């Protein structure tokens, strides 16, 4: 089994721009977004990290720069070790990363999901459409500036929207989000409840809070 440090050393000898990343579990590396395909190809073919576990992205906040980082998790099924590869996107408004769907076919849907929910465009992706929200949905819901309740948007089918007068309206939060009490044995008290029940849709949130 290759020790985690060896993976990092081997990658860094090939790609000097790669740096180690603080981590609590598995070895983790920062990669310039331009080197991502080369590094992942190296990890797959030379380091036998043959299994792509996950492709996702992180929004570090509206104020942060760089705002978006794309994350790849790789697993070696022969050496039984993981590695996490992180690349910060150059643009904070139109984040872009290279596709790796030609390296792992399974990356196709992961990249579509990341594009759908966080708005990271994967260059070279064969079919970069939304996968969870409907085509034409104007927002990226997992971005930090998107409220959990949602933003008022027409239904995917305009004809049905006109007929029913329904829209994808913000969900009533009623003082939520709702939190369950851990370790509560009384079933009634254990029900998830809002931490702040002083406001709802009918009575506005007090300004003093």
């Amino acid at each position, binding site marked *: 089994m290759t020790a985690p440090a060896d993976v990092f050393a081997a990658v860094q000898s090939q790609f000097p721009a790669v740096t180690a990343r603080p981590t609590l579990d598995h070895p983790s590396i920062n990669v310039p977004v331009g080197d991502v395909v080369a590094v992942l190809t190296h990890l797959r073919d030379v380091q036998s990290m043959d299994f792509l576990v996950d492709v996702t992205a992180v929004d570090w906040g509206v104020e942060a720069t760089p705002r978006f980082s794309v994350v790849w998790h790789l697993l070696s099924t022969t050496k039984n070790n993981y590695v996490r590869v992180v690349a910060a996107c150059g643009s904070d408004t139109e984040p872009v990363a290279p596709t790796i769907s030609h390296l792992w076919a399974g990356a196709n849907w992961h990249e579509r999901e990341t594009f759908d929910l966080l708005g990271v465009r994967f260059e070279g992706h064969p079919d970069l459409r939304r996968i*969870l*929200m*409907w085509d034409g949905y104007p*927002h990226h*819901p997992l971005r930090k500036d*998107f*409220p*959990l*309740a*949602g*933003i008022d948007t027409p*239904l*995917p*089918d305009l*004809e*049905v*929207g006109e*007929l*029913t007068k*329904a829209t*994808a*309206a*913000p*969900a*009533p*939060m*009623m003082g*939520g*989000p*709702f939190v369950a009490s851990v370790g509560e044995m009384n079933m009634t008290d254990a029900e*998830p409840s809002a931490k702040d029940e002083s406001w709802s849709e009918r009575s506005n949130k007090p300004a003093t809070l």
Partner: protein
Amino acid sequence: MVSPNTELAYNSKIEGDLVVTRADAVINWIRANSMWPMPMGLACCAIELMASAASRFDIARFGAEVFRFSPRQSDVMIVSGTVTYKMAPHVRRIYDQMAEPKWVIAMGACASSGGMYRSYATLQGVDRIVPVDVYISGCPPRPEALLDALMKLQAKVQRSPGTTKELLSASA
């Protein structure tokens, strides 16, 4: 116990092969006892819906065992599960395709109110896009609750007034 009248039941020899009633009562009775469901199974409630149809709970006892996967042949749409905004227009389209008379049961918390999904992706109650006749609480409701809802819907259909009048004015 001795009773002078031993013929409590309908006697065709005396009364002839004839039963007198109202058209409304007959039509409502027929409708209520052959409600064919349109299973709109969208999430875990659909598992309980399937259990209701199986032998242990046996929805056939109420004349509703014929689950039709064609809206053209069904009378009551059982919305069992979370309705996402992406799915909502399809639910409405299928409802529109059902022939009159038609009813809707909102099964479980999600279909009734969005349930625990207070989020950007979930329709907060199927009554925003289709008229609902009976709501069932529970997450998911037990099959008995669905049977109870069906019985409530049957009672509602049986007491609905002016059925014949509606039919005549619709055909005129």
